[in-house]
């Protein structure tokens, strides 16, 4: 019995090790290949340690152009999805149960739609209106589903809102607009910041939807995927490494803010 227990424990340890190797080995190898002189990114054989690929990346004008495109798109996606997502969450919480169920299903439906279908549907609608693919359509297509995430995050925070605060302010003579601006919005602020962060990330990382509505634009993900097919060098790994570093820093910061707020919430609540 004890021996069987030890064997199963050993096997589980093996599985756990394999799982985390599976999780991190590809990323580690991709990162390491940045520093190999080999023209095709790899770690076998190691031909010499270099930083030349960072320099080559910095010289790549097309790459900078695609970074710019992605940032412009992300900016507008946040600008549009935050107000609409917030409005959607507010409407949802002020509806009766039956109507809410239907509206909710409609509102989360973009999350259950494959990304390519969202891109295609947006593309055909706007062609009918004489608008072709480009930054505008990328923003429209991405926003249509990123709003869902904003809505869900804001709605989650709204559930903890204490309506008596609003009533108190109203009875003290504040206008409804003022109550919204001075009480509800500040309360939602943490959720809005988190949602904005998530929206930027979702926008920059999107590929499936963007691919269909990009027109002649080349956002970052499209740039990387094209490079893979037309001539991959470790310069792309350098780009990947920088993006990973920024994402991880952002994620850690996000987690840090979230935990601090959770702690603050626990104190006041």
């Amino acid at each position, binding site marked *: 019995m004890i021996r069987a227990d030890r064997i199963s424990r050993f096997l*589980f340890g093996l*599985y*756990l090790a394999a799982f985390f190797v599976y*999780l*991190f*080995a*590809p*990323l580690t*190898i*991709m990162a390491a*290949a940045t520093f190999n002189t080999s023209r*095709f990114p*790899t770690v*076998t*054989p190691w031909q010499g340690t270099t930083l030349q690929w960072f320099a080559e990346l910095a010289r790549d004008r097309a790459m900078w152009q695609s970074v710019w495109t992605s940032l412009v798109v992300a900016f507008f996606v946040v600008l549009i999805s935050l107000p*609409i997502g917030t*409005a*959607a969450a507010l409407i949802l919480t*002020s*509806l009766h149960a039956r*109507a809410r169920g239907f509206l909710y*299903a409609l509102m989360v*439906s*973009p999350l*259950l*739609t*494959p*990304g*390519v*279908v*969202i891109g*295609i*549907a*947006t*593309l*055909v*609608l706007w062609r009918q209106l004489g608008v072709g693919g480009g930054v505008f359509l990328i923003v429209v297509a991405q*926003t*249509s589903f990123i*709003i869902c995430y904003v809505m869900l995050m804001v709605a989650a925070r709204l559930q903890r809102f204490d309506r008596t605060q609003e009533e108190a302010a109203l009875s003290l003579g504040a206008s*409804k*607009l003022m109550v919204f601006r001075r009480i509800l919005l500040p309360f939602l602020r943490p959720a809005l910041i988190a949602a904005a962060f998530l929206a930027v990330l979702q926008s920059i990382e999107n*590929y*499936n939807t963007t*691919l*269909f509505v990009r027109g002649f634009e080349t956002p970052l993900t499209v740039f*990387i*995927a094209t490079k*893979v*097919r037309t001539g*991959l060098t470790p310069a*792309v*790994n350098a780009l*990947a490494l920088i*993006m*990973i570093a920024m*994402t*991880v820093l952002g*994620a850690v910061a996000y*987690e840090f803010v979230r935990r601090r707020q959770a702690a603050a919430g626990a104190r006041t609540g």
Partner: protein
Amino acid sequence: MAELYRRFGGGLATVFVGLVFLWLAGMVLAPNVMMIDYALRPNLPPAQVGGPDDVYSLDNILYLAKEGVHRAIFFKTVWASAFVAFATFVVCYPLAYWLAQHATPGQLGIALLALTIPFWINEVLRTLAWYILLAFRGPLNAALLGIGIIDQPVRWYGNAGVLAGMVYAYILFMLFPIYNSIESLEKAQIEAARDLGASTWRIHWRVVMPHAKAGIATGCVFTFMLAAGSYVAPALLGAPGSRWFTEIIYNWFFEGGDWNRGAAYALVLLVLCLVVVLATLKLARVNLTDVAK
């Protein structure tokens, strides 16, 4: 709705309703309606649009049923996506169970952090990482040759590559729902089953999995949908013999120049995903509200 106006006043409430209407009608419903319209019309030169030939029909969808290669790729995508969901489940279940029932809070914290970091990184980069790892002269072949498991390099690009890349990409969508649902299982139930003589397999089959049914269904549904609609993994890790349905759709739009047929294929993909999602959730008695968490 009256409640909304009472709470925020006419001006603000109207702005909210207007914004949400713009989103749902203009960005969600209208595009899909237009896609259906495209799917049902023939592909005509501009001069004939609106003419006598421009009538609704199911021709574009029937074309998929008749064209042998496309039909085969469609069915392959369906079963391969189901297989991806199954493989992801097999990979994730033991870890989810361990995290939910056995891990100490310290282990749990570290494991969750380690799990989330790769998934903040974007899907194209994760796929690129696999592209490098699986290259013909790449590290995986070098390592396997080194150990002596194989004596000739293997061409991983193709079905194996796509499968590995997809399972990798969707681990978290499977792990978290299962973890959440196993977490609420009382340890006492597992102990009771063990005391009554149930084997480990039986405990999982008869106690843990039925309890975690909702989480398992949610994870599988999401993984299936993401896999069926994926374009990156098959495009980067695939080979000519492992084409994915999304690639066929892409070709109709940007190489075949027949948007109507492309829209019809996209519609088929959408209906497939909706049917699978809703049917599975219904079977597992999961509410849509619980899924979005």
